């Protein structure tokens, strides 16, 4: 039993998001909020106070018509591995509320452990972490629609995307009932992946050659956000447009994503 759990079973869940396919419809954001009991406020226009685990950003190339072009970039938590699991947020958390799991490659956030110092928010280069300024208030009757597999958060703690870890837990439960020890690729998919009508998001185990993400991340046009920081994120993006790939990091005029490699 002990040796079975070893290296070869180590998973690294991640995503490859095709930015050429994303239409910016925002289905992933809605699905994520509904799936993960993400609280919302009456006025969601103040983005310093609103919470969006999955957030679609709009990028423009800044050129006048007819060269003008836009790109939508969905941004979940990047689940950075850093160097040996020392992702930016995990390194600074004084409460051990956030942690990197070498077995799944998921950066966990335990809300009851968090005391709200927000160091992790300052450390995160992707603005993927959000602070609960208020206790969640659900419109009357809506509390009945909350997902029982995801704990709701209280005022004063930080929250972020968990790669729908509860779906992984459920998938494993089902596998155990069927007498299996491993789950299939399709058994565990995040809510945003399934909600995307364009199929822009692909989710799976980056370590497993039989999973779609394994090949997709090796495409020549695949890149990660702010790659040179060394945060080693597990969310890959793909775009055939060079200006989009350039927008993924702060490149100087005379350098580009192709030169960095």
């Amino acid at each position: 039993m002990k040796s079975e759990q070893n290296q070869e079973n180590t998973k690294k869940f991640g995503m490859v998001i095709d930015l050429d396919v994303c239409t910016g419809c925002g289905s992933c954001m809605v699905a994520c909020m509904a799936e993960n009991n993400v609280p919302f406020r009456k006025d969601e226009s103040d983005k310093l106070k609103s919470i969006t685990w999955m957030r679609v950003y709009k990028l423009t190339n800044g050129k006048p018509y007819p060269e003008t072009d836009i790109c939508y970039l969905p941004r979940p938590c990047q689940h950075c591995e850093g160097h040996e699991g020392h992702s930016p947020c995990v390194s600074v958390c004084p409460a051990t509320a956030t942690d990197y799991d070498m077995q799944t490659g998921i950066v966990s956030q335990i809300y009851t452990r968090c005391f709200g110092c927000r160091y992790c928010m300052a450390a995160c280069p992707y603005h993927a972490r959000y602070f609960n300024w208020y206790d969640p208030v659900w419109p009357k009757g809506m509390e009945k629609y909350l997902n029982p597999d995801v704990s709701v958060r209280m005022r004063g703690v930080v929250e972020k995307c968990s790669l729908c870890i509860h779906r992984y837990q459920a998938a494993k439960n089902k596998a155990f009932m069927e007498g299996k020890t491993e789950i299939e690729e399709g058994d565990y998919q995040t809510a945003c992946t399934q909600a995307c009508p364009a199929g822009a998001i692909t989710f799976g185990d980056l370590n497993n050659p039989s999973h779609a993400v394994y090949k997709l991340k090796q495409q020549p046009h695949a890149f990660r956000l702010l790659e040179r920081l060394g945060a080693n994120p597990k969310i890959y993006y793909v775009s055939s447009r060079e200006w989009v790939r350039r927008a993924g990091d702060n490149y100087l005029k005379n350098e580009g994503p192709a030169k960095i490699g």
Partner: protein
Amino acid sequence: MSNSDDKTQAVSEKTVETSDRPGGSSKGIIVLCFFIGLAASLAFGWGVFPKLLYSRKQQPIDFNHSLHAGVVSNGCESCHFLRDDGAYSGAPKLAQCIDCHQDVQGNSPEEAKFVDQYVKKGIEVPWLVYARQPACVFFSHAAHIKAAKMDCVTCHGKIGESEHLKVYEQNRISGYSRDIEGASLINMLGFKKHTWDRMKMDDCSECHQKQKAVMGSVQTQKEGCFVCHK
């Protein structure tokens, strides 16, 4: 106690030499008051407060596990079963009980109460769950029973042989069952004989650390947080 008395005597003797009597006896009274106060606080802290902290509730029906275990065919899993998707059914619903208890079967007053107040009216029994964990905890019965091949008794003890349900003690502040925090004061401090004496995070982690060689967590070198949290 005699030691401290000697000390107070020594102190009062010293003061006799330098000042007059009333000052000396007042110091003795202070020391005496200190020990009385200490004893009173200890008695309150260890004796009275734990009783005040927990409200004691009786289960709606005094269920007899032993009696039922003799009648059903599939042991504990006859009523406490796992669903096909791996979810645990927990305490049985009325629909299951109705199979046998459409009408009163025996002559137990508890059964008559159950049939009258719940079956006939179609109301679910509001069982108090001793093992109810906080919302942030993920526990999988399927992982323990199916994958790790553990039996019910390992964690729950011989509940199946009990004839009465024990009193449910609820923490007035946290709202959680006392079985989570420790059945006795000694259990609360982490000294326990049985698995079911306390069910806090350290108790889960203690066993998990023994069973597994690979620890995923970078911060704690234990198992990953999301193994038992959600």
